[in-house]
């Protein structure tokens, strides 16, 4: 069984596909982990 095709645009400024949104969310996650690491280092 195949997932429904991505026929719907995310409708977000700057994003034409859902794949772009997923990469953005993944990028946010990486930034959060880096931010948490720097936070720990700053106050440890």
């Amino acid at each position, binding site marked *: *069984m195949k997932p429904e095709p991505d026929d719907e645009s995310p409708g977000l400024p700057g994003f034409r596909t859902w794949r772009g949104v997923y990469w953005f969310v993944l990028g946010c996650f990486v930034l959060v982990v880096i931010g948490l690491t720097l936070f720990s280092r700053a106050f440890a």
Partner: protein
Amino acid sequence: MNLVDWLVLLGTMVGIAGYGAWRTRHTDHLDTYLKGSKTTGWFTIGLSVAATQASAITFLSIPGQGFESGIGFVQNYFGLPLALIIVCAVFLPIYRKLGVYTAYEYLGKRFDQKTRLLGAGLFLLQRGLAAGVTIYAPAIILSSVLGWRLDLTIIGAGLLVIVYTVTGGSVAVSLTQKWQMLVIFAGMIAAFFIVLARLPAGLGFSGAAHLAGALGKLEAVDFSLDPSHRYTLWSGLIGGLFLSLSYFGTDQSQVQRYIGGASLREGRLGLMFNAVLKIPMQFFILLLGALVFVFYQFQPAPVFYNEAEWARHTNGPQGATFRALEEKHAALHAAKQQRIAAWQVARTSGDTGAEQAARTALLAAQKATDDVRTEARSALLAADPRAKTKDSDYVFIGFIVRQLPHGLVGLLVAVMIAAALGSKASELNALGATTTIDLWRHFRPLAEHDEARNVRAAKWFTAGWGIFAIGFALFAGFAENLIEAINILGSIFYGVVLGLFLTAFFLKRIGGTAVFWGAVAAQALVFVLFFTLNISYLWYNLIGCAACMIFALVLQAMLSPQSKPATS
């Protein structure tokens, strides 16, 4: 709590519940009742998903976790954004395309009815057992700290949630959860600023964070590969990924939150909202706990934070032992305050060597007070083997009641109850939907086309589960370890259920018989391993899932070629 607190508490809780019930009182279509309104947007879906996951225990226990062990617990959520991306890309489009009411209905369409009943049965068993705990666990803490009657707290909260969940179904759950989450956000932000304001003059956020860091409370990310470390980046990424994938992708209480809505786009955006929001939110709650820890470094701190439990023993026959522990803790706490002052002077002097020496002395003082707290727990257990020795859940609520101004106390208690109602509502809604669609309709196939009868059945089942949850919470007489056991039991089932779904999505040659018996064997294996191995229960998500898929593959290879393969 005074009159103002009660007005704020009852105004927000009864107001939101009443608004939800009134707005959705005419919900009589099965689709709307079980999947929510077709006009629901991404923001409501996103808040509803967040409210379902955030139970009252989240707001009672997680600040306590930050207080006790620091903010490293945030790593448990590292697998969540990745899991939500997979749910968005794979699970959600399939659920919407097939128009299913429950996740397990999909298993019936992809495999066969016995596999559907297995998935639904595992969900009902796990959620049904947990149903009492989600009301009981916060009620026992709130009633203990606030002096409320436990039975009335359970009945009051339980009936309130039953009224609007039965009246408006999924649409009422989403609507009320949106407002409950807004109350939660407002309350937690207010608490954060109050903690900062209550710190000694001149300390500020930076000074507090440096002190928390010096005492080892701000180590957010641990890159260690040592399996003895409880929370690491790797266990959070791998174990957390499988746990979140099971929870968000296959647990009906979450699936029901996002399969409705105006369009596929709204569901996806709601989930992505959570993928971005969740880790910062958990970090914020843990940081709040770490700041409460700093607050108590400058105040007289109790030796044991469940003060009702402690008072029961100080006034008992062995009171002298407990009072001696209190005095010992107070003396060590005062000595630690001197060490803190010395460390602050050394830090501002810029002398690295002096700062390091002062920090070592401070850590030794911290260990001494921690040792007395451990001694206090042992004394409690010696006096009463059934004593509740986990006091970290009481730290934040104790701080709220003693330190916050009136009005805000009511708002923060409303936060706890809003969280309890929000997660309970999703649970009842999901239990009612699964019982109606996967069990009742399975055994009464002729009733499928009678919409009014289906809605009536869903309402009765939802109410029935609600009353069962209240009864379970009232009469089961939970022990602390039973609550934990039920939570662990959930993790034991999740892996196999996820295995069923991943097999359905990705192993297209596997048929119903192979996956059914593969899942039964995998569940048996998980039970055996659980009773023989000593590993973190997070890993059973991975083991159960992998075992289910491997067993299904092997069984499919062994079965005759006439065995039913996947149809698409």
